[in-house]
Protein backbone atom coordinates (compact mmCIF):
# COMPACT_ATOMS: atom_id res chain seq x y z
CA UNK A 1 0.00 0.00 0.00
CA UNK A 2 1.36 3.39 -0.96
CA UNK A 3 1.35 6.55 1.03
CA UNK A 4 -1.72 7.53 2.94
CA UNK A 5 -2.17 11.27 2.86
CA UNK A 6 -4.80 11.89 5.47
CA UNK A 7 -7.18 14.73 4.92
CA UNK A 8 -9.76 15.54 7.52
CA UNK A 9 -13.21 16.25 6.09
CA UNK A 10 -14.75 18.99 8.24
CA UNK A 11 -18.41 18.17 7.62
CA UNK A 12 -18.20 14.42 7.16
CA UNK A 13 -15.98 14.43 10.26
CA UNK A 14 -13.81 11.57 9.23
CA UNK A 15 -10.30 11.37 7.87
CA UNK A 16 -9.85 9.93 4.39
CA UNK A 17 -6.96 9.26 2.06
CA UNK A 18 -6.67 12.24 -0.27
CA UNK A 19 -5.45 10.21 -3.24
CA UNK A 20 -8.20 7.63 -2.81
CA UNK A 21 -10.87 10.30 -2.99
CA UNK A 22 -9.39 11.91 -6.08
CA UNK A 23 -9.09 8.46 -7.66
CA UNK A 24 -12.73 7.69 -6.90
CA UNK A 25 -13.72 11.03 -8.40
CA UNK A 26 -11.69 10.23 -11.50
CA UNK A 27 -13.16 6.74 -11.83
CA UNK A 28 -16.73 7.97 -11.53
CA UNK A 29 -15.90 10.92 -13.80
CA UNK A 30 -14.58 8.49 -16.37
CA UNK A 31 -17.78 6.46 -16.17
CA UNK A 32 -19.90 9.56 -16.40
CA UNK A 33 -18.02 10.77 -19.47
CA UNK A 34 -18.21 7.29 -20.97
CA UNK A 35 -21.93 6.90 -20.52
CA UNK A 36 -22.92 10.54 -20.74
CA UNK A 37 -24.44 10.61 -17.28
CA UNK A 38 -24.06 12.89 -14.29
CA UNK A 39 -22.50 10.27 -12.06
CA UNK A 40 -24.31 11.20 -8.85
CA UNK A 41 -25.92 7.77 -8.66
CA UNK A 42 -22.44 6.22 -8.52
CA UNK A 43 -20.71 8.77 -6.29
CA UNK A 44 -23.35 8.79 -3.58
CA UNK A 45 -23.46 5.02 -2.95
CA UNK A 46 -19.65 4.83 -3.21
CA UNK A 47 -19.29 7.50 -0.56
CA UNK A 48 -21.79 5.66 1.62
CA UNK A 49 -19.82 2.42 1.21
CA UNK A 50 -16.70 4.35 2.30
CA UNK A 51 -18.32 5.35 5.57
CA UNK A 52 -19.26 8.91 4.77
CA UNK A 53 -22.53 9.78 6.57
CA UNK A 54 -25.46 9.26 4.19
CA UNK A 55 -26.72 12.86 4.22
CA UNK A 56 -23.22 14.17 3.46
CA UNK A 57 -22.83 11.62 0.66
CA UNK A 58 -26.11 12.71 -0.89
CA UNK A 59 -25.41 16.44 -0.69
CA UNK A 60 -21.87 16.06 -1.98
CA UNK A 61 -23.13 13.80 -4.78
CA UNK A 62 -25.41 16.58 -5.96
CA UNK A 63 -22.42 18.93 -5.98
CA UNK A 64 -20.48 16.46 -8.10
CA UNK A 65 -23.30 16.28 -10.62
CA UNK A 66 -23.02 20.02 -11.22
CA UNK A 67 -19.36 19.75 -12.13
CA UNK A 68 -19.73 16.72 -14.35
CA UNK A 69 -22.68 18.17 -16.24
CA UNK A 70 -20.92 21.39 -17.26
CA UNK A 71 -18.78 19.98 -20.08
CA UNK A 72 -21.62 18.09 -21.68
CA UNK A 73 -24.02 21.00 -21.33
CA UNK A 74 -21.56 23.41 -22.92
CA UNK A 75 -20.89 21.04 -25.80
CA UNK A 76 -24.59 20.55 -26.47
CA UNK A 77 -25.29 24.27 -26.14
CA UNK A 78 -22.66 25.11 -28.73
CA UNK A 79 -24.36 22.74 -31.13
CA UNK A 80 -27.70 24.37 -30.46
CA UNK A 81 -29.14 21.25 -28.86
CA UNK A 82 -30.78 22.88 -25.86
CA UNK A 83 -34.47 23.75 -25.66
CA UNK A 84 -34.15 26.52 -23.11
CA UNK A 85 -37.84 27.10 -22.65
CA UNK A 86 -38.49 23.44 -21.95
CA UNK A 87 -35.49 23.32 -19.66
CA UNK A 88 -36.64 26.34 -17.71
CA UNK A 89 -40.13 24.93 -17.26
CA UNK A 90 -38.64 21.70 -15.94
CA UNK A 91 -36.20 23.40 -13.63
CA UNK A 92 -38.92 25.47 -12.02
CA UNK A 93 -40.53 22.18 -11.06
CA UNK A 94 -37.10 20.95 -10.08
CA UNK A 95 -36.59 23.75 -7.57
CA UNK A 96 -39.90 22.90 -5.96
CA UNK A 97 -39.21 19.17 -5.82
CA UNK A 98 -35.73 19.75 -4.47
CA UNK A 99 -36.98 22.03 -1.71
CA UNK A 100 -39.47 19.40 -0.62
CA UNK A 101 -36.74 16.75 -0.74
CA UNK A 102 -34.30 18.75 1.39
CA UNK A 103 -36.90 19.22 4.11
CA UNK A 104 -37.86 15.56 3.94
CA UNK A 105 -34.18 14.69 4.52
CA UNK A 106 -34.07 17.01 7.54
CA UNK A 107 -37.24 15.44 8.96
CA UNK A 108 -35.98 11.90 8.39
CA UNK A 109 -32.75 12.73 10.19
CA UNK A 110 -34.74 13.63 13.28
CA UNK A 111 -36.61 10.37 13.07
CA UNK A 112 -33.40 8.39 12.66
CA UNK A 113 -34.65 6.85 9.41
CA UNK A 114 -32.72 8.86 6.83
CA UNK A 115 -30.29 6.06 5.92
CA UNK A 116 -33.11 3.60 5.44
CA UNK A 117 -35.20 5.89 3.26
CA UNK A 118 -32.33 6.91 1.03
CA UNK A 119 -31.13 3.33 0.63
CA UNK A 120 -34.62 2.08 -0.18
CA UNK A 121 -35.15 4.85 -2.71
CA UNK A 122 -31.86 3.95 -4.32
CA UNK A 123 -32.56 0.24 -4.44
CA UNK A 124 -35.98 0.88 -5.95
CA UNK A 125 -34.97 3.50 -8.51
CA UNK A 126 -31.74 1.86 -9.56
CA UNK A 127 -33.42 -1.54 -9.67
CA UNK A 128 -36.23 -0.35 -11.90
CA UNK A 129 -34.11 1.83 -14.14
CA UNK A 130 -31.29 -0.70 -14.37
CA UNK A 131 -33.66 -3.49 -15.35
CA UNK A 132 -35.45 -1.36 -17.93
CA UNK A 133 -32.17 -0.20 -19.39
CA UNK A 134 -30.80 -3.72 -19.52
CA UNK A 135 -33.84 -4.98 -21.36
CA UNK A 136 -33.84 -2.03 -23.76
CA UNK A 137 -30.15 -2.21 -24.54
CA UNK A 138 -30.11 -5.98 -24.99
CA UNK A 139 -33.01 -5.65 -27.39
CA UNK A 140 -31.18 -2.88 -29.22
CA UNK A 141 -28.07 -5.04 -29.50
CA UNK A 142 -30.09 -7.91 -30.91
CA UNK A 143 -31.80 -5.60 -33.35
CA UNK A 144 -28.57 -3.96 -34.46
CA UNK A 145 -27.06 -7.38 -35.11
CA UNK A 146 -30.04 -7.99 -37.34
CA UNK A 147 -29.28 -4.79 -39.21
CA UNK A 148 -32.28 -2.67 -38.12
CA UNK A 149 -32.02 0.53 -36.14
CA UNK A 150 -34.72 1.53 -33.74
CA UNK A 151 -36.01 5.03 -33.22
CA UNK A 152 -38.90 5.96 -30.95
CA UNK A 153 -42.20 6.92 -32.58
CA UNK A 154 -42.77 10.64 -32.84
CA UNK A 155 -46.14 10.78 -34.44
CA UNK A 156 -49.49 9.89 -32.97
CA UNK A 157 -51.64 11.37 -30.27
CA UNK A 158 -51.13 10.64 -26.63
CA UNK A 159 -53.16 11.36 -23.53
CA UNK A 160 -50.89 14.32 -22.90
CA UNK A 161 -52.62 16.24 -25.66
CA UNK A 162 -55.65 16.63 -23.45
CA UNK A 163 -53.85 18.52 -20.69
CA UNK A 164 -54.21 22.30 -20.24
CA UNK A 165 -51.61 25.10 -20.14
CA UNK A 166 -50.25 24.32 -23.55
CA UNK A 167 -47.01 25.98 -24.51
CA UNK A 168 -45.07 26.17 -27.72
CA UNK A 169 -41.60 24.67 -27.34
CA UNK A 170 -39.94 25.86 -30.54
CA UNK A 171 -36.69 23.97 -30.39
CA UNK A 172 -38.44 20.69 -29.73
CA UNK A 173 -41.11 21.44 -32.30
CA UNK A 174 -43.77 20.71 -29.71
CA UNK A 175 -47.03 22.28 -28.70
CA UNK A 176 -47.89 20.56 -25.47
CA UNK A 177 -49.08 21.18 -21.93
CA UNK A 178 -46.53 22.59 -19.52
CA UNK A 179 -47.74 20.21 -16.84
CA UNK A 180 -45.69 17.14 -17.85
CA UNK A 181 -42.33 18.98 -17.88
CA UNK A 182 -43.12 20.63 -14.55
CA UNK A 183 -44.15 17.29 -13.09
CA UNK A 184 -41.01 15.60 -14.42
CA UNK A 185 -39.02 18.48 -12.95
CA UNK A 186 -40.62 18.13 -9.52
CA UNK A 187 -40.00 14.39 -9.41
CA UNK A 188 -36.41 14.75 -10.55
CA UNK A 189 -35.79 17.64 -8.14
CA UNK A 190 -37.05 15.50 -5.28
CA UNK A 191 -34.78 12.63 -6.33
CA UNK A 192 -31.88 15.05 -6.60
CA UNK A 193 -32.28 16.01 -2.96
CA UNK A 194 -32.93 12.51 -1.65
CA UNK A 195 -30.39 10.63 -3.77
CA UNK A 196 -27.83 13.24 -4.72
CA UNK A 197 -28.30 12.55 -8.42
CA UNK A 198 -28.86 14.69 -11.47
CA UNK A 199 -31.92 12.80 -12.59
CA UNK A 200 -30.91 12.35 -16.21
CA UNK A 201 -32.06 8.74 -15.89
CA UNK A 202 -35.60 9.89 -15.46
CA UNK A 203 -35.51 13.01 -17.63
CA UNK A 204 -34.09 11.44 -20.78
CA UNK A 205 -36.58 8.55 -21.10
CA UNK A 206 -39.43 10.79 -19.99
CA UNK A 207 -38.62 13.39 -22.63
CA UNK A 208 -38.14 10.82 -25.36
CA UNK A 209 -40.99 8.44 -24.69
CA UNK A 210 -43.51 10.52 -22.77
CA UNK A 211 -43.17 13.89 -24.42
CA UNK A 212 -41.73 12.87 -27.78
CA UNK A 213 -38.99 15.47 -27.68
CA UNK A 214 -36.52 14.95 -30.56
CA UNK A 215 -33.58 12.83 -29.42
CA UNK A 216 -31.05 15.43 -30.53
CA UNK A 217 -32.38 17.98 -28.06
CA UNK A 218 -33.02 15.65 -25.14
CA UNK A 219 -29.53 15.30 -23.70
CA UNK A 220 -28.64 18.96 -23.92
CA UNK A 221 -31.91 20.07 -22.37
CA UNK A 222 -31.56 17.46 -19.66
CA UNK A 223 -28.02 18.59 -18.81
CA UNK A 224 -29.10 22.23 -18.78
CA UNK A 225 -31.89 21.45 -16.32
CA UNK A 226 -29.63 19.21 -14.26
CA UNK A 227 -26.99 21.85 -13.66
CA UNK A 228 -29.53 24.23 -12.21
CA UNK A 229 -31.46 21.72 -10.14
CA UNK A 230 -28.37 19.94 -8.78
CA UNK A 231 -26.82 23.32 -8.03
CA UNK A 232 -29.97 24.43 -6.25
CA UNK A 233 -30.07 21.16 -4.32
CA UNK A 234 -26.46 21.62 -3.22
CA UNK A 235 -27.10 25.14 -1.97
CA UNK A 236 -30.27 24.04 -0.15
CA UNK A 237 -28.57 21.04 1.45
CA UNK A 238 -25.71 23.25 2.62
CA UNK A 239 -28.09 25.91 3.88
CA UNK A 240 -30.71 23.75 5.59
CA UNK A 241 -28.87 20.61 6.59
CA UNK A 242 -25.21 21.71 6.57
CA UNK A 243 -24.43 18.47 4.84
CA UNK A 244 -22.20 19.57 1.97
CA UNK A 245 -18.55 18.81 2.60
CA UNK A 246 -16.66 21.28 0.45
CA UNK A 247 -13.30 19.59 0.91
CA UNK A 248 -14.70 16.22 -0.15
CA UNK A 249 -16.55 17.88 -3.01
CA UNK A 250 -13.58 19.71 -4.45
CA UNK A 251 -11.39 16.60 -4.34
CA UNK A 252 -14.05 14.55 -6.12
CA UNK A 253 -14.65 17.30 -8.64
CA UNK A 254 -10.99 17.61 -9.54
CA UNK A 255 -10.74 13.89 -10.15
CA UNK A 256 -14.14 13.84 -11.80
CA UNK A 257 -13.68 16.47 -14.46
CA UNK A 258 -10.38 15.00 -15.52
CA UNK A 259 -11.77 11.48 -15.59
CA UNK A 260 -14.78 12.63 -17.58
CA UNK A 261 -12.64 13.93 -20.40
CA UNK A 262 -11.01 10.53 -20.81
CA UNK A 263 -14.33 8.80 -20.48
CA UNK A 264 -15.81 10.80 -23.33
CA UNK A 265 -12.94 9.87 -25.62
CA UNK A 266 -13.21 6.17 -24.83
CA UNK A 267 -17.00 6.30 -25.16
CA UNK A 268 -16.75 7.54 -28.70
CA UNK A 269 -15.25 4.23 -29.70
CA UNK A 270 -18.08 2.07 -28.37
CA UNK A 271 -21.54 1.48 -29.76
CA UNK A 272 -24.45 3.13 -27.95
CA UNK A 273 -26.29 -0.11 -27.17
CA UNK A 274 -23.17 -1.74 -25.74
CA UNK A 275 -22.54 1.25 -23.51
CA UNK A 276 -26.10 1.20 -22.29
CA UNK A 277 -25.92 -2.50 -21.51
CA UNK A 278 -22.74 -1.96 -19.52
CA UNK A 279 -24.25 0.95 -17.68
CA UNK A 280 -27.36 -1.09 -16.91
CA UNK A 281 -25.18 -3.83 -15.45
CA UNK A 282 -23.34 -1.30 -13.29
CA UNK A 283 -26.56 0.28 -12.06
CA UNK A 284 -27.99 -3.10 -11.12
CA UNK A 285 -24.78 -4.05 -9.33
CA UNK A 286 -24.97 -0.94 -7.18
CA UNK A 287 -28.65 -1.60 -6.45
CA UNK A 288 -27.91 -5.15 -5.35
CA UNK A 289 -25.04 -4.06 -3.12
CA UNK A 290 -27.27 -1.48 -1.44
CA UNK A 291 -30.05 -4.03 -1.01
CA UNK A 292 -27.64 -6.39 0.73
CA UNK A 293 -26.71 -3.59 3.07
CA UNK A 294 -30.32 -3.40 4.17
CA UNK A 295 -31.06 -7.11 4.33
CA UNK A 296 -27.96 -8.53 5.93
CA UNK A 297 -27.69 -8.27 9.68
CA UNK A 298 -25.15 -5.55 10.46
CA UNK A 299 -22.19 -6.48 12.64
CA UNK A 300 -23.09 -3.72 15.10
CA UNK A 301 -26.78 -3.19 15.80
CA UNK A 302 -26.27 0.04 17.70
CA UNK A 303 -25.31 3.34 16.11
CA UNK A 304 -24.58 6.74 17.60
CA UNK A 305 -25.66 10.05 16.15
CA UNK A 306 -25.61 13.60 17.50
CA UNK A 307 -28.73 14.28 19.50
CA UNK A 308 -31.82 14.07 17.35
CA UNK A 309 -29.86 13.30 14.24
Amino acid at each position, binding site marked *: MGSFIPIYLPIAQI*SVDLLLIVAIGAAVGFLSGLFGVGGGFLITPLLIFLGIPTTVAVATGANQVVASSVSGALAQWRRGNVDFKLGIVMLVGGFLGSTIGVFVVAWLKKKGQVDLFISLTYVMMLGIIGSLMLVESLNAIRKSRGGATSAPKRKGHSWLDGLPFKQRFQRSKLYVSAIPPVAIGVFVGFLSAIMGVGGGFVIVPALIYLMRVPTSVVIGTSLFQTIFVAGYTT*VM*QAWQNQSVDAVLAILL*VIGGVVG*AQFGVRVGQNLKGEQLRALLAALVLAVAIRLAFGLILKPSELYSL*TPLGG
Partner: protein
Amino acid sequence: MPAAQIAQLPPEAIEADISTRDVPVGGNFAGTRIVVFGAVQNSRQTTDDESPYDVAVVIAGPAQQLTARLKADVAGLWINTGALNFNNVPSYYSVLANRPIKDIAPKPILAQLALGFDNLSLAPDTSPDARETGDYRKAIVRVKTQQGLYREDPQGIAFIGRSLFRGSVDLPANVPVGEFNAWIYLFRNGELIGEPYKTVIDLRREGFERAIYEFAFVYPFWYGVLSVGLALLSGFIATLIFRRN
Protein backbone atom coordinates in the same frame (compact mmCIF):
# COMPACT_ATOMS: atom_id res chain seq x y z
CA MET B 1 7.04 0.27 60.87
CA PRO B 2 4.97 1.06 63.96
CA ALA B 3 1.76 3.01 63.27
CA ALA B 4 2.91 6.08 65.18
CA GLN B 5 5.94 6.39 62.96
CA ILE B 6 3.90 5.90 59.79
CA ALA B 7 1.59 8.69 60.81
CA GLN B 8 4.54 11.07 61.08
CA LEU B 9 5.77 10.43 57.52
CA PRO B 10 5.26 13.34 55.15
CA PRO B 11 2.15 12.86 52.96
CA GLU B 12 2.63 11.34 49.55
CA ALA B 13 1.50 13.28 46.57
CA ILE B 14 1.69 13.22 42.80
CA GLU B 15 3.87 15.62 40.93
CA ALA B 16 3.16 15.37 37.26
CA ASP B 17 3.01 17.04 33.91
CA ILE B 18 1.92 16.28 30.37
CA SER B 19 3.76 16.82 27.14
CA THR B 20 1.37 19.29 25.58
CA ARG B 21 -1.63 21.35 26.59
CA ASP B 22 -2.26 22.94 23.24
CA VAL B 23 -2.98 20.96 20.10
CA PRO B 24 -3.77 22.80 16.87
CA VAL B 25 -5.96 20.68 14.60
CA GLY B 26 -5.45 21.45 10.94
CA GLY B 27 -6.50 19.77 7.70
CA ASN B 28 -3.75 17.21 7.81
CA PHE B 29 -4.20 16.36 11.48
CA ALA B 30 -3.35 12.69 11.83
CA GLY B 31 -3.63 12.45 15.59
CA THR B 32 -1.25 13.45 18.32
CA ARG B 33 0.62 11.78 21.15
CA ILE B 34 0.17 12.96 24.71
CA VAL B 35 2.90 11.87 27.12
CA VAL B 36 2.15 11.85 30.81
CA PHE B 37 4.93 11.72 33.36
CA GLY B 38 5.60 12.42 36.97
CA ALA B 39 6.81 11.23 40.29
CA VAL B 40 5.46 10.21 43.66
CA GLN B 41 6.54 12.77 46.22
CA ASN B 42 7.66 11.43 49.55
CA SER B 43 7.55 7.95 48.20
CA ARG B 44 7.51 5.24 50.82
CA GLN B 45 8.93 2.71 48.44
CA THR B 46 11.96 1.04 49.95
CA THR B 47 13.02 -1.43 47.27
CA ASP B 48 13.68 -0.79 43.61
CA ASP B 49 11.39 -3.48 42.20
CA GLU B 50 8.10 -3.57 44.10
CA SER B 51 6.13 -0.37 43.92
CA PRO B 52 3.26 -0.13 46.37
CA TYR B 53 1.75 2.57 44.23
CA ASP B 54 -0.70 2.51 41.40
CA VAL B 55 -1.16 5.37 38.99
CA ALA B 56 -4.19 5.85 36.77
CA VAL B 57 -4.51 8.55 34.13
CA VAL B 58 -7.80 9.61 32.59
CA ILE B 59 -8.09 11.84 29.55
CA ALA B 60 -11.63 12.84 28.72
CA GLY B 61 -12.87 14.90 25.80
CA PRO B 62 -15.68 17.44 25.92
CA ALA B 63 -19.09 16.04 26.83
CA GLN B 64 -21.55 15.57 24.00
CA GLN B 65 -25.21 14.83 23.62
CA LEU B 66 -26.00 11.85 21.48
CA THR B 67 -28.74 9.52 20.46
CA ALA B 68 -28.02 5.82 20.50
CA ARG B 69 -30.12 3.82 18.07
CA LEU B 70 -30.82 0.12 17.94
CA LYS B 71 -31.60 -1.77 14.75
CA ALA B 72 -34.03 -4.64 14.59
CA ASP B 73 -35.20 -6.96 11.85
CA VAL B 74 -38.47 -5.62 10.50
CA ALA B 75 -39.91 -7.55 7.57
CA GLY B 76 -36.47 -8.64 6.42
CA LEU B 77 -34.89 -5.21 6.63
CA TRP B 78 -32.65 -4.03 9.44
CA ILE B 79 -34.18 -0.77 10.58
CA ASN B 80 -33.62 1.64 13.46
CA THR B 81 -36.41 0.86 15.87
CA GLY B 82 -35.18 1.91 19.29
CA ALA B 83 -33.45 5.06 20.48
CA LEU B 84 -32.26 6.55 23.71
CA ASN B 85 -30.85 10.03 24.26
CA PHE B 86 -27.82 10.61 26.41
CA ASN B 87 -26.90 14.10 27.51
CA ASN B 88 -23.48 13.79 29.01
CA VAL B 89 -21.28 11.38 27.12
CA PRO B 90 -17.53 11.96 26.93
CA SER B 91 -16.68 12.38 23.27
CA TYR B 92 -13.30 10.86 24.01
CA TYR B 93 -12.26 8.76 26.99
CA SER B 94 -8.96 7.11 27.63
CA VAL B 95 -7.71 5.38 30.80
CA LEU B 96 -4.10 4.38 31.36
CA ALA B 97 -2.84 2.52 34.37
CA ASN B 98 -0.05 0.28 35.50
CA ARG B 99 -2.51 -2.51 36.32
CA PRO B 100 -6.09 -3.34 35.38
CA ILE B 101 -8.27 -0.70 36.96
CA LYS B 102 -10.46 -3.16 38.80
CA ASP B 103 -7.39 -4.47 40.67
CA ILE B 104 -6.23 -1.03 41.72
CA ALA B 105 -9.11 0.06 43.90
CA PRO B 106 -12.47 -1.26 45.08
CA LYS B 107 -15.56 -0.59 43.02
CA PRO B 108 -17.12 2.16 45.18
CA ILE B 109 -14.00 4.30 44.88
CA LEU B 110 -13.74 3.74 41.14
CA ALA B 111 -17.42 4.57 40.73
CA GLN B 112 -17.04 7.75 42.70
CA LEU B 113 -14.17 8.86 40.49
CA ALA B 114 -15.94 7.61 37.35
CA LEU B 115 -12.76 5.76 36.57
CA GLY B 116 -12.95 3.07 33.90
CA PHE B 117 -15.50 2.11 31.26
CA ASP B 118 -17.70 0.25 33.72
CA ASN B 119 -17.86 3.28 35.96
CA LEU B 120 -18.71 6.01 33.52
CA SER B 121 -21.91 7.69 34.49
CA LEU B 122 -23.83 7.59 31.23
CA ALA B 123 -27.33 8.64 32.11
CA PRO B 124 -30.11 8.53 29.55
CA ASP B 125 -32.72 11.24 29.68
CA THR B 126 -35.50 8.69 29.94
CA SER B 127 -35.03 5.33 31.58
CA PRO B 128 -36.73 2.32 30.11
CA ASP B 129 -35.67 -0.63 32.20
CA ALA B 130 -32.29 -1.18 33.77
CA ARG B 131 -31.28 -3.97 31.44
CA GLU B 132 -32.10 -1.99 28.30
CA THR B 133 -30.28 1.03 29.64
CA GLY B 134 -27.32 -1.17 30.43
CA ASP B 135 -27.31 -2.52 26.88
CA TYR B 136 -27.34 0.98 25.46
CA ARG B 137 -24.52 2.05 27.78
CA LYS B 138 -22.42 -0.92 26.79
CA ALA B 139 -23.15 -0.16 23.15
CA ILE B 140 -21.94 3.42 23.51
CA VAL B 141 -18.66 2.20 24.99
CA ARG B 142 -18.36 -0.50 22.34
CA VAL B 143 -19.03 1.78 19.36
CA LYS B 144 -16.77 4.52 20.70
CA THR B 145 -14.04 1.96 21.29
CA GLN B 146 -14.43 0.68 17.76
CA GLN B 147 -14.12 4.26 16.49
CA GLY B 148 -10.88 4.56 18.41
CA LEU B 149 -12.30 7.17 20.78
CA TYR B 150 -12.51 5.10 23.97
CA ARG B 151 -9.46 3.23 25.18
CA GLU B 152 -8.52 1.35 28.28
CA ASP B 153 -4.85 0.50 28.59
CA PRO B 154 -4.05 -1.45 31.77
CA GLN B 155 -0.36 -1.41 30.92
CA GLY B 156 -0.16 2.15 29.76
CA ILE B 157 1.70 3.47 32.80
CA ALA B 158 5.18 2.25 33.58
CA PHE B 159 7.16 2.90 36.72
CA ILE B 160 10.79 3.86 36.35
CA GLY B 161 13.12 3.59 39.29
CA ARG B 162 11.64 4.30 42.68
CA SER B 163 9.13 6.97 42.03
CA LEU B 164 9.02 8.02 38.40
CA PHE B 165 6.15 6.97 36.19
CA ARG B 166 5.44 7.55 32.55
CA GLY B 167 2.77 6.76 29.99
CA SER B 168 1.54 7.94 26.63
CA VAL B 169 -1.70 7.95 24.72
CA ASP B 170 -2.19 8.57 21.01
CA LEU B 171 -5.18 10.75 20.26
CA PRO B 172 -6.57 9.52 16.92
CA ALA B 173 -7.24 11.68 13.89
CA ASN B 174 -11.01 11.61 14.43
CA VAL B 175 -10.78 12.98 17.96
CA PRO B 176 -13.23 15.86 18.57
CA VAL B 177 -11.94 19.36 19.18
CA GLY B 178 -12.45 21.27 22.37
CA GLU B 179 -11.31 21.24 25.97
CA PHE B 180 -10.04 17.91 27.23
CA ASN B 181 -9.60 17.18 30.93
CA ALA B 182 -6.75 15.06 32.20
CA TRP B 183 -6.56 13.58 35.69
CA ILE B 184 -3.74 11.63 37.26
CA TYR B 185 -4.66 9.54 40.33
CA LEU B 186 -2.32 8.01 42.86
CA PHE B 187 -3.38 4.91 44.75
CA ARG B 188 -1.73 2.80 47.40
CA ASN B 189 -3.36 -0.45 48.52
CA GLY B 190 -6.64 0.48 46.94
CA GLU B 191 -6.77 3.90 48.56
CA LEU B 192 -6.69 7.20 46.77
CA ILE B 193 -3.70 9.14 48.03
CA GLY B 194 -3.76 12.91 48.02
CA GLU B 195 -5.40 15.13 45.50
CA PRO B 196 -5.45 14.00 41.86
CA TYR B 197 -3.40 16.07 39.47
CA LYS B 198 -5.72 17.86 37.07
CA THR B 199 -5.00 19.76 33.90
CA VAL B 200 -6.61 20.83 30.65
CA ILE B 201 -5.61 20.05 27.06
CA ASP B 202 -6.99 22.37 24.44
CA LEU B 203 -7.60 21.01 20.95
CA ARG B 204 -8.33 23.89 18.62
CA ARG B 205 -9.36 23.89 15.00
CA GLU B 206 -6.88 25.95 13.13
CA GLY B 207 -6.28 27.65 9.88
CA PHE B 208 -8.02 26.46 6.77
CA GLU B 209 -9.93 23.70 8.50
CA ARG B 210 -11.40 26.11 10.98
CA ALA B 211 -12.28 28.61 8.30
CA ILE B 212 -14.20 26.00 6.32
CA TYR B 213 -15.96 24.57 9.38
CA GLU B 214 -17.06 27.97 10.61
CA PHE B 215 -18.03 29.10 7.15
CA ALA B 216 -20.21 26.02 6.71
CA PHE B 217 -22.08 26.62 9.94
CA VAL B 218 -22.13 30.38 10.21
CA TYR B 219 -22.83 31.27 6.59
CA PRO B 220 -24.33 28.02 5.27
CA PHE B 221 -26.07 29.58 2.28
CA TRP B 222 -22.91 31.21 0.91
CA TYR B 223 -20.95 28.10 1.67
CA GLY B 224 -23.37 26.22 -0.58
CA VAL B 225 -23.12 28.87 -3.26
CA LEU B 226 -19.33 28.73 -3.10
CA SER B 227 -19.36 24.97 -3.38
CA VAL B 228 -21.56 25.07 -6.48
CA GLY B 229 -19.50 27.90 -7.91
CA LEU B 230 -16.33 25.85 -7.55
CA ALA B 231 -18.01 22.88 -9.20
CA LEU B 232 -19.12 25.01 -12.15
CA LEU B 233 -15.71 26.60 -12.44
CA SER B 234 -13.92 23.25 -12.34
CA GLY B 235 -16.17 21.81 -15.02
CA PHE B 236 -15.62 24.88 -17.13
CA ILE B 237 -11.85 24.89 -16.72
CA ALA B 238 -11.65 21.20 -17.53
CA THR B 239 -13.58 21.79 -20.72
CA LEU B 240 -11.21 24.56 -21.71
CA ILE B 241 -8.10 22.56 -20.94
CA PHE B 242 -9.22 19.51 -22.84
CA ARG B 243 -10.75 21.37 -25.73
CA ARG B 244 -8.18 20.08 -28.18
CA ASN B 245 -10.73 18.30 -30.34
